[in-house]
């Protein structure tokens, strides 16, 4: 075998290995989804979505947890998006690029990797105790905002970095101020990237269980939260709670709740894709 044949063989070998690796992940996901769907789809009806939790698995529903999840998502978005995007804009466009900026940058990236339960402890101390929010929706959303801020900041910076310098220079050379350049050129051009980052961050927040348990979210909530000061539960906690029960009926309920949680996430991601595609047709280089 000569060297060109050897190279071809290696090339092909890696190709099939790569296909295998890709399929492995997809297959696992497919098995999981299939399993959950088979177990849980039959249980989903209007009653399941609009009922309160109950000791009887056949009568139990996810209403408070679903509404809690929507509240948490909304509040987290309201808190984290303006903070994260503003901080990202500052760091990328206004802040000087010196040693301090480097240290900040490394630390923000590190923060994105801190285990979420630690954010839960931080939230419990600062929001729950010092600021007196207790186990309220606001305390939960504030805690999750801290958790996803680094993700939003980093992805905002990346999106801004991707805008060609030539556009920035053109704007400055026309006499635009920094803020005008950010507002008229950089944000519209980086909108797709920023939205993607924000949605990814929110999707992560939706799935978080540990920090909310730490700050005192409830497993059993017999009411629908109606203000940010109310106590609450969220879908992942409801799922976690049901899975721990010995009765078979609750396992089915958990599978059904997982389907609903996935659905919420997919809708969110679909919305992000829609926004991004719409925007990209307007802005192309």
């Amino acid at each position, binding site marked *: 075998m000569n060297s060109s044949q050897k190279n071809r063989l290696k090339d092909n070998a890696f190709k099939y290995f790569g296909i295998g690796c890709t399929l492995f992940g997809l297959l696992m996901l497919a098995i999981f989804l299939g399993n959950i769907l088979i177990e849980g789809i039959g249980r989903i009806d209007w009653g399941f979505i609009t009922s309160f939790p109950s000791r009887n698995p056949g009568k139990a529903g996810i209403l408070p947890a679903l509404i809690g999840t929507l509240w948490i998502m909304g509040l987290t978005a309201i808190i984290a998006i303006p903070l994260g995007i503003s901080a990202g804009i500052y760091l990328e466009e206004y802040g000087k690029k010196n040693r301090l900026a480097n240290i900040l940058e490394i630390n923000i990236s590190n923060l994105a990797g801190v285990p979420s339960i630690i954010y839960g402890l931080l939230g419990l101390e600062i929001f729950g105790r010092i600021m007196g929010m207790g186990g309220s929706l606001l305390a939960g959303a504030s805690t999750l905002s801290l958790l996803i801020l680094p993700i939003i900041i980093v992805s905002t910076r990346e999106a801004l970095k991707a805008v060609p310098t030539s556009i920035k220079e*053109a704007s400055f050379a026309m006499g635009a101020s920094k803020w005008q350049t950010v507002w008229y050129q950089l944000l519209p051009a980086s909108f797709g990237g920023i939205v993607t980052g924000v949605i990814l961050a929110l999707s992560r927040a939706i799935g978080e269980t540990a920090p909310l348990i730490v700050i005192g979210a409830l497993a059993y909530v017999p009411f629908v939260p109606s203000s940010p000061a109310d106590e609450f539960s969220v879908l992942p906690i409801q799922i976690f709670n049901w899975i721990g029960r010995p009765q078979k009926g609750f396992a089915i309920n958990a599978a059904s709740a997982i389907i609903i949680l996935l659905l919420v996430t997919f809708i969110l991601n679909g919305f992000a894709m829609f926004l991004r595609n719409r925007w990209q047709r307007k802005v192309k280089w």
Partner: protein
Amino acid sequence: MNKLEAKNVNVFYGAIKPNTVTAFIGPSGCGKSTFLRLFNRMNDYIDVFRMNGIISIDGKDIYDKNIRVEELRKQIGMVFQKPNPFPKSIYENVVYGLRIQGIKDKKILDETVETALQQAALWEEVKDKLKDSALALSGGQQQRLCIARTLAVQPTVILMDEPASALDPISTAKIEDLIYKLKSKYTIVIVTHNMQQAGRISDKTAFFYMGEMVEFDDTKIIFTNPKQERTLNYVTGRFG
């Protein structure tokens, strides 16, 4: 009164008269673009940037603390090497400078678009598609659009950083024609690595080498009878 003056900026002493075209020539990396960017303070964004000496317009030091950079840049426009229209419509590109000044009157905006595009010799080609994306234009058209965008805010000086180096010969000829016509109303400073171009369009030429201005004189003198040997070697093609 001199339009632009530069004193003590490295070794260079010189002045640029109004309504002239001044060319900066020299090999790549000799500092001619950096020097050009001093005039509208585009180097301010480089964190380590520092400057000694005085650059003034109409007798006013542009690096004075009281100078508002945004105001200065309305007076001193710039056209870049690579056409860099905004990813917006042709119309919006031209009125950008007015919009950021807060001008909303549709009549003024419309008039400015027509005048600026006509001055930039682009009006006839685009007048029926002002709402189309500027990125759909050809490279040469994009560059003329960038010139129109600069003219729209009525500067008195236009800096051009190798405006034709990314264009084909026909587009280049159009840009050169344009520069020749604009001279009657504006003071133009152009960086070029094309010596023939400098010879064709400029009144004065400055030769840069290794971060220094070697010689600054009438274009004719620079190309036929320069005082410095390095200049002679460069313009006769012996190096660079």
